[in-house]
């Protein structure tokens, strides 16, 4: 009995698993990419090119090409940094916090959300790096031995905390993302081998590190995954708290508030979920992922946006109350000028996008209407950008000394770099969609009812 013995054919339970594999792999395996995908890639690459040109002008000239001034020293650059970092947080929240709280629906979107996290953090990191003016000295922020009188970083500065928080966040997000992807890369490897695509199979083979689905491997893998989720959860809260410390530890009215860490974290989750849906709704439609990313998952995300949107709204109100309650004339002035000062339009854009727009999610009709959801998500993205701009620019433009008051206007290079990061983000995301497993196949299979098929108690198929 040394030859293969086939006793009987596989049963029907396995069709569910095959369907999941097929539906997800199809996105990367389709011989020709969708025309809209190509168009979007071309547009986003063009936007990325604008960003590269803006960086070229900035680096060769200096940050004088930006609209920043002595008074409004932090402007679009830091606004964009905080905005992008916040967007990244939804990915970690979905992959880690919802994992720990056993929200099964996360499996359909966690991969894409984690990818979004990484690309968003890459975009975010560009801004402080370029704001240093001479980014080739960025290594001065690292505690490296040097011949400059052995100069070391000052760890009391929240900007140094930022360096550590953001770089840790990027590293851990990359590890988490990659680790989650290994079993699915192995699926790609095996499918490419069966389809005779040798080069692709070899590349996916190396990336999947020789994964063979061994139960002993799964055992350690699941432990490590659980612990990484457990580590990412405090990490994600600490990262945006540290980002908010950049402001909260300063003395400037409008920045110097203890509400910032929770307020920033809620805003980060809010904007992150909006960005997840902004990206996934069109791609879900384009690549027929309706039975992977189900409408009920979109429902859940809408509810999270509704909740975090109201937290953000509560924070806006609390800020004003505390400014009045403190009796501090400088605080009161800062908030009066925030809402009614020269940047009143930004403040009202923020409130209407962040507080009013999500109220539509109370309606089930809206939560079922993906076009509506997409439009509202765009509003939220815009509103969250304005929130950071309002905090940063209006506070600086009306600081303690009236002689230092000024107005802020961005230049074309401010706009160019921001457009460039949006292009880079979308470009990377589209490439990810085409070449890597867009949904966690192994997790979706494990979360399906058929994962328990054939057990002693059930003994049948669902």
């Amino acid at each position, binding site marked *: *009995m*040394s*030859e*293969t*013995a*086939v*006793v009987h*054919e*596989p049963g029907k*339970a*396995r*069709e569910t*698993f*095959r369907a999941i*594999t097929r539906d997800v792999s199809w996105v990367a395996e389709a011989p020709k990419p969708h025309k809209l995908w190509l168009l979007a890639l071309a547009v986003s690459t063009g936007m990325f090119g604008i960003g590269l040109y803006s960086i070229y002008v900035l680096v060769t000239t200096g940050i004088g090409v930006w609209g920043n001034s002595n008074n409004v020293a932090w402007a679009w650059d830091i606004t964009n940094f905080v905005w992008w970092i916040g967007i990244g947080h939804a990915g970690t929240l979905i992959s880690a916090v919802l994992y720990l709280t056993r929200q099964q629906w996360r499996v359909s979107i966690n991969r894409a959300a984690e990818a979004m996290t990484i690309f968003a953090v890459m975009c975010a990191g560009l801004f402080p790096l370029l704001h240093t003016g001479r980014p*080739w000295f960025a290594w001065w922020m690292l505690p490296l031995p040097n011949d400059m009188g*052995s100069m*070391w*970083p000052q*760890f*009391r500065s*929240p900007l140094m*905390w930022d360096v*550590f*928080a953001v770089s*840790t966040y990027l590293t*851990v997000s990359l590890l*988490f993302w990659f680790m989650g992807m290994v*079993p699915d890369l192995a*699926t790609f490897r*095996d*499918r490419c081998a*069966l389809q005779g695509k040798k080069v692709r199979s070899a590349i996916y*083979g190396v990336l999947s*590190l*020789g994964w*063979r*689905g*061994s*139960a*002993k491997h*799964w*055992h*350690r*893998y*699941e*432990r*490590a995954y659980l612990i990484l989720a457990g*580590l990412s959860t*405090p990490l994600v809260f*600490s990262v945006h708290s*540290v980002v908010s*410390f950049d402001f909260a530890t300063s003395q400037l009215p409008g920045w110097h508030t203890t509400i910032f860490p929770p307020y920033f974290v809620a805003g980060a989750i809010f904007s992150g979920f909006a960005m997840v849906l902004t990206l996934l709704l069109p791609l879900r439609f384009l690549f027929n992922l309706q039975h992977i990313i189900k409408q009920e998952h979109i429902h859940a995300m809408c509810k999270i946006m509704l909740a975090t949107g109201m937290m953000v709204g509560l924070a806006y109100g609390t800020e004003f109350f505390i400014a009045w309650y403190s009796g501090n004339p400088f605080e009161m002035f800062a908030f009066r000028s925030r809402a009614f000062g020269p940047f009143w339009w930004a403040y009202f854009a923020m409130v209407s996008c962040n507080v009013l727009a999500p109220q539509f999610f109370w309606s089930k009709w809206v939560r079922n209407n993906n076009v509506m959801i997409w439009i509202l998500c765009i509003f939220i993205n815009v509103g969250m950008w304005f929130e950071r701009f309002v905090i940063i620019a209006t506070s600086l433009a009306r600081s303690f000394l009236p002689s230092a008051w000024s107005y802020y206007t961005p230049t074309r290079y401010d706009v160019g770099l921001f457009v460039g990061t949006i292009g880079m983000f979308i470009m990377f995301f589209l490439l990810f969609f085409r070449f890597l497993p867009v949904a966690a196949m*192994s997790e979706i299979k494990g979360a399906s009812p058929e*994962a*328990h*098929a*054939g057990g*002693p108690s059930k003994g049948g*198929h669902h």
Partner: protein
Amino acid sequence: MATKDHDAAPVTPEPVNGEGELYGVLAEYDTPGELVEASRRVRDAGYTEFDCYSPFPVHGIDSAMGIKRTILPLVIFGGGFAGALGGLALQWYCNAHAWTWNISGKPTWSIPANIPVAYECAILLAALTAFFGMWAFNKLPQVWHPLFRKDRFARVTDDGFFIGIEARDRHFDLDKTQKLLQDAGAIAIEPAYYDPDPAKKVMPRWITAFIVASTAFALIPFAIAAKARNSHSPDPHIHIFADMDYQPKFRSDQKLDIFKDGRANLGEQPGTVARGHLPEDDLFFRGLDGEAGAQKWTTGFPKLYPDGRPFAVDGALLERGRGRYEIYCTPCHGYDGRGNGMVPERVKLGGGLWQARNLVEAPDAKGAGGVAVQMPNGQLFNTISNGYNTMMGYAAQIPHADRWAIVAYVRALQRAQNASQADVPPDLQGSIR
């Protein structure tokens, strides 16, 4: 594999030819539940060298197979702990040891400000330990494995559930083992062999080559840096971004072809004075008089300014001297020169002592005291320039000509403070009361 449609199960038995050593037996099961059941039976039959393979972690298989709980969490805790301690140590070394900064008198070492970075370091190291530790314990990456030679096994990442029993197990017997797996409900069973080619039992050659090449490539910058550190070159450093380290200017004795001698500096030129060579007049610049080798402090004043103008002791000079004196000298010596300026007075109020010389004190009949009155002009000038005892030199603040003006004014003060009635002009004698 000829089958194009991956979704149909491959059912054709494979012929055994050109196989290497026997690795073991591979059995496929239909459902996760059957896999768990089968693995329990294999374990109960006493097998230890076996493993289950599935597209996702199957619930309950750990206990069925008897997998011991991994110690990975403990190792990760160690990593996180080391990260926290390392983060604290790093900050202590940087800010409290190697580069201490006094910022508003705050302590150089205070835990609260160092918590965020230590926290991030703990998470970073724990996460790195979790990631790399998991792969290390799993002995991955290992891109070659005898089971990968089975086409059927490709389904393990799709919808296949397998048990592989290795031939090295002490209970292993090809027929008996296959019988056991079949009785446990396998839908397909086949023996698995190593590749006859020993090269296929190690890392593929192209991956090894890639790793070696990329490692060598990555070492090139370090090699260049090491070479540069241990060699000398007349060329300036390579600066990708020059900043202000190199400026378009020439230094002494640099090569420059536009001059006849090929040097950037021209040397001595007639009619010019080289930088730093101007103050040659000992009288004006140092207050010295007399023959070379036997110079003394002058008792007079310079004859000429360095630019050739005649030096005159007149009202304008005294007025200039009064202005400079009141700016630079009054804080200690006082407006009348008696050494009771604001600084000594305030020190006295605080109970201390800060003596400034009384510039106008006249010597007694025996010629004792009255040091400043008896000093030659040149020495007074030198004292202003270079200081004396606790008085610092004012050469950096007061130009030479102004120092001479102060000397003239001090002389006037001394005269005025020690005046007798006879010094009053005759036409004003009557107004003295």
